[in-house]
């Protein structure tokens, strides 16, 4: 399945920035990585964690219980926007089993701080966003409970703690909140209109709290002025939610004697939760231990801190007993951090031959009632030009508050949105100038000899063979067989269509990661690392890296995650960062460990260091039969054989690829069946192709889900979210998807020692575009030229009807 490894061709041009990994600064023995004949890396090693998970031995948050534990239930706002005039908790307090009812007034009285979300991406390479006119944007303080007003439906206004979960829920209904309803706004365009009656935060009277301009305006204007063709389009990549299988949960305990808090809460990274929650509580981080073991799905929803986590911690101190909270599925639909929701207007200038000259983009991100993350806007801003060489571009990036649940980086944060925009725009351009859309793409794709390539808004793509991706994807898809397939479908009364999208995405992510490796005398190796899998198989793929480095069998390596008493530093898992950051720091730590092992072997045999040769896990004095094993070295009296290494790495990588979708539409029911899906994904070095394929498949399903079914529908008249359960929120299902033709391209990234890019999001990034373009292609004979996601039967039926109307109008 794996395409032959291709080395990135590097061209030393003046403009080519230096993004290469600095081998000179690397620790000793690091070269081993470069030269290693990988034994485990690149192999589809079966997942170590599966047996545990499949036999019910996973340790998810709700599986934990503590003696004397109590239960929390939230009182949630039924209004999208309302002032809290008062809260009467007397009836709830009198209800059976109730121990406490806490409100926003108590939050203020106890001096609890807002969650320090830190929404601005913080590596040196991220697109820097600022408030309109400059400066740090106002993000809307995220207190555990608001005292002034509610800003979205479902916002928690009080927490009830009781002896049982049922008692807490019953009593929550008795809490009487006096609201004064206010004007509300749901859509970002309305909120940013300049005349919006709803002001979500008084500090930002026009709701727009971020406005930043990027690119070269003069060059762009000049290019548009001399362009032979200009195309423009506007899109809304709407709101979806992650729907992890395990609803979020928390179990908190406070030990009055030691003053220490403990929190069991599955997340995307326990260290972040610990630091942010400590700040909320006003305590030292070391006074809080956070445990996050098995996590049943994340997709970004779990990477930011939830108020419920802070509420259980605080409540456990207030009631003096452990407090547990487990969200219901309804609460998850309402108040999991949501994804996407970008309005974008894009324009493209071309010369007479269809060469792209310049691009303009105007992106507006709906962050909801508070700003939890600007990653989607920032990431997307850096990639508006996609896989194409567009010499000049300008971009306005804005973010706006609305009366909706907060959005967060959702699988492939910000990238599917801009990929959708550029790929649809390219198709529109091809149509307008009468050129084959593949040819138009080919003419403008970034060539390998331009790598590293700085795009028009300043992002530096590290490596990739974009056109080869496209060719291989087309071959895999059997692009040329399409005409015959279409003919066959037409004979059955069906409409067949295909859609191709190229993508490039950035993987940046939190820059710091730490690995601690300990060799135990009993033949085991423990690796402590600060990432947090939620199904990605870190326990296996990370073990493969360390096993290869140390020359031991993969079975001997155990990955330890998720307990902040053990894991001190860690960026968690998001932005496709885990394998790259963890792989790098594990390789560095391993190389230090090898050096230490060599030193000990020399000491053991009392010979000079350079006489020690290594063969796998055996250390031999050259020319003798004196050998000592790695695990024996760990048993020597010189103490534990262990290293710890922290690494900070800012340089981003740019996974890329091409995906193609084929759909068959029943024009009567307006039912869309996805009949074929092929993809080539350049993930850089692939550590475990089986796991990467799993990620690709899941990623495709998630992108297809948004294109086809998923939408957080809100009633414009009442502001009420309408898709509150699986009855109304359509999920992708196995029987709605074909068997995927996925292949991995390994163009080694020069930015890190293992050459890794990322493999978790590439399936999702192009999928919104491929599916939409395929549907448009299928409907083209009926005159349909535009359509909105999700591509539900009703949407398709309406589009066909409107096209008919238009045709009629033209004929008359």
């Amino acid at each position: 399945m794996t395409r032959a490894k291709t080395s990135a061709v590097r061209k030393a041009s003046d403009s080519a920035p230096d993004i290469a990994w600095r081998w000179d600064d690397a620790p000793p023995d690091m070269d081993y990585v470069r030269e290693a004949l990988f034994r485990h890396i690149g192999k589809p090693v079966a997942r170590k964690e599966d047996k545990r998970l499949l036999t019910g031995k996973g340790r998810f948050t709700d599986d934990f219980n503590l003696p004397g534990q109590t239960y929390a239930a939230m009182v949630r706002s039924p209004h999208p926007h309302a002032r809290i005039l008062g809260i009467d908790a007397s009836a709830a307090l009198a209800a059976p089993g109730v121990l406490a009812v806490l409100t926003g007034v108590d939050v203020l009285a106890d001096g609890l701080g807002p969650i320090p979300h830190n929404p601005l991406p913080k590596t040196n390479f991220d697109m820097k966003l600022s408030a309109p006119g400059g400066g740090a944007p106002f993000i809307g303080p995220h207190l555990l409970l608001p005292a002034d007003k509610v800003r979205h439906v479902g916002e928690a206004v009080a927490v009830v703690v009781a002896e049982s979960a049922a008692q807490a829920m019953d009593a929550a209904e008795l809490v009487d909140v006096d609201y004064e309803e206010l004007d509300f706004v749901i859509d970002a365009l309305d909120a940013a209109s300049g005349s919006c009656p709803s002001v979500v935060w008084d500090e930002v009277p026009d709701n727009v709290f971020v406005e930043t301009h990027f690119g070269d305006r003069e060059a762009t204007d000049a290019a548009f002025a001399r362009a032979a063709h200009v195309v423009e389009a506007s899109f809304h990549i709407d709101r979806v939610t992650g729907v992890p299988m395990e609803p979020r949960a928390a179990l908190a305990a406070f030990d009055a004697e030691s003053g220490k808090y403990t929190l069991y809460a599955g997340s995307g990274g326990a260290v972040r939760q610990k630091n942010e929650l400590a700040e909320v509580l006003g305590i030292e981080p070391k006074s809080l231990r956070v445990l996050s073991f098995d996590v049943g799905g994340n997709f970004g929803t779990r990477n930011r801190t939830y108020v419920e986590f802070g509420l259980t911690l605080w409540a456990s101190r207030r009631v003096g007993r452990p407090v547990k909270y487990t969200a219901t599925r309804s609460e998850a639909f309402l108040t999991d951090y949501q994804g996407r929701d970008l309005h974008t207007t894009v324009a493209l200038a071309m010369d007479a031959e269809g060469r792209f000259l310049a691009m303009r983009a105007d992106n507006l991100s709906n962050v909801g009632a508070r700003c939890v993350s600007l990653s989607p806007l920032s990431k997307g801003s850096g990639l508006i030009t996609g896989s194409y060489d567009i010499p000049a571009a300008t971009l306005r990036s804005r973010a706006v508050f609305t009366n909706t649940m907060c959005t967060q980086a959702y699988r492939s944060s910000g990238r599917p949105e801009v990929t959708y925009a550029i790929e649809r725009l390219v198709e529109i351009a091809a149509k307008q100038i009468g050129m084959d859309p593949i040819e138009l793409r080919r003419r403008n794709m970034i060539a390998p000899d331009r790598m590293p390539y700085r795009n028009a808004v300043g992002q530096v793509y590290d490596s990739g063979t974009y056109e080869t991706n496209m060719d291989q994807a087309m071959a895999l898809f059997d692009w040329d067989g399409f005409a015959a397939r279409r003919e066959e479908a037409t004979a059955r009364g069906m409409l067949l269509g295909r859609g191709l999208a190229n993508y490039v995405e950035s993987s940046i992510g939190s820059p710091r990661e730490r690995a601690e490796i300990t060799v135990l005398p009993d033949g085991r190796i423990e690796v402590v690392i600060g990432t947090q899998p939620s199904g990605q198989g870190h326990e296996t793929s990370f073990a493969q890296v360390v096993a290869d480095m140390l020359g031991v069998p993969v079975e001997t390596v155990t990955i330890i995650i998720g307990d902040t008493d053990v894991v001190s530093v860690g960026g968690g898992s998001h932005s496709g960062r885990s394998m790259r950051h963890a792989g790098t720091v594990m390789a560095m730590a391993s190389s230090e460990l090898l050096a230490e092992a060599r030193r000990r072997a020399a000491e053991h045999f009392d010979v000079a260091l350079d006489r020690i040769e290594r063969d796998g896990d055996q250390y031999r004095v050259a020319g003798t039969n004196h050998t000592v094993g790695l695990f024996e070295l760990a048993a020597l009296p010189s103490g534990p054989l262990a290293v710890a290494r922290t690494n900070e790495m800012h340089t981003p990588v740019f996974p890329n690829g091409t995906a193609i979708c084929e759909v068959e539409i029943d024009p009567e029911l307006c039912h869309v069946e996805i009949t074929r899906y092929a993809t080539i994904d350049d993930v850089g070095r692939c550590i475990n192709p089986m796991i990467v394929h799993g990620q690709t498949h899941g990623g495709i399903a998630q992108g297809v889900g948004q294109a086809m079914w998923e939408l957080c529908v809100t009633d414009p008249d009442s502001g009420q979210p309408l898709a509150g359960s699986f009855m109304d929120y359509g999920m992708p299902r196995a029987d709605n998807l074909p068997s995927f033709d996925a292949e991995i391209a390994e163009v080694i990234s020069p930015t890190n020692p293992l050459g890794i890019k990322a493999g978790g999001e590439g399936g999702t990034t192009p999928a919104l575009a491929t599916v939409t373009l395929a549907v448009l292609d299928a409907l083209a004979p009926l005159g349909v030229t535009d359509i909105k996601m999700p591509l539900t039967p009703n949407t398709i039926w309406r589009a066909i009807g409107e096209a008919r109307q238009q045709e009629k109008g033209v004929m008359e």
Partner: protein
Amino acid sequence: MYAFDYHRARSLEEALKLFATLDEATFLAGGHTLLPTMKNRLAAPENLIDISALPELSGIGMQGGVLRIGAAMTHHAVAASSLVAETIPALAALAGSIGDVQVRHVGTMGGSVANNDPAADYPAAVLSLGAEIETDRRRIPADDFFQGLYATALEEGELIVAIRFPVPETAGYGKYRNPASRYALAASFVSIRDGAVRVAVTGAGKNGVFRWEAAEQALMGHCSASRIADLRPESDALLSDMHADAAFRANLVNVVTRRAAEHLGGASIV
């Protein structure tokens, strides 16, 4: 979910006695509608009387040209019954199209008919086939039974014991699933008995399942899809929601009814 007490009845008599003596009691069959409703705190019975194991509500058999199916029979039992497949194959196909495997092994015909969800499958078959709802106290003709959204002719405490389906000459079912819930976005059951065509539509009506009389007339004498090629029900009477507006539902009703007519002796499920 609010607190409640659970009672397992062992006979029809015991179930009825429990209902008469307990406060705020509700029958529990498969629980696949009732329990989610309770979990969402939209229903709060104090007592649940489990009727899923009552022997009187069990069994599938023929009684003089009538297929009698016990109310507690699961969708799976109906879908897998060779008797149903031989007599009314469209009904077996309908049962096999409900929800998923887990739902079909727990949900019951009686529960579905008693609940009368506007998107449920069974009501279309019951109404089209002119079945009778046999309860602990009477037999109710289908035409009188379904009385609007979640409303039926059942009286307080009245228990469905069985559904009696007169075996038709032929019948077909056409269904288009809601992509989210997989309930019917629109579905149509077309049957012919004694020369009369009956068309019952579910998933689409504002008041739940309904007979589409215009289609019945058009198909009378010659049940061919082409006869209703341009026929659509009035949009005014149709549901409009985030999944399908009334105009689209009118289109779907036309399509699924044509497909039912084209698949007599079976079903077209998409």
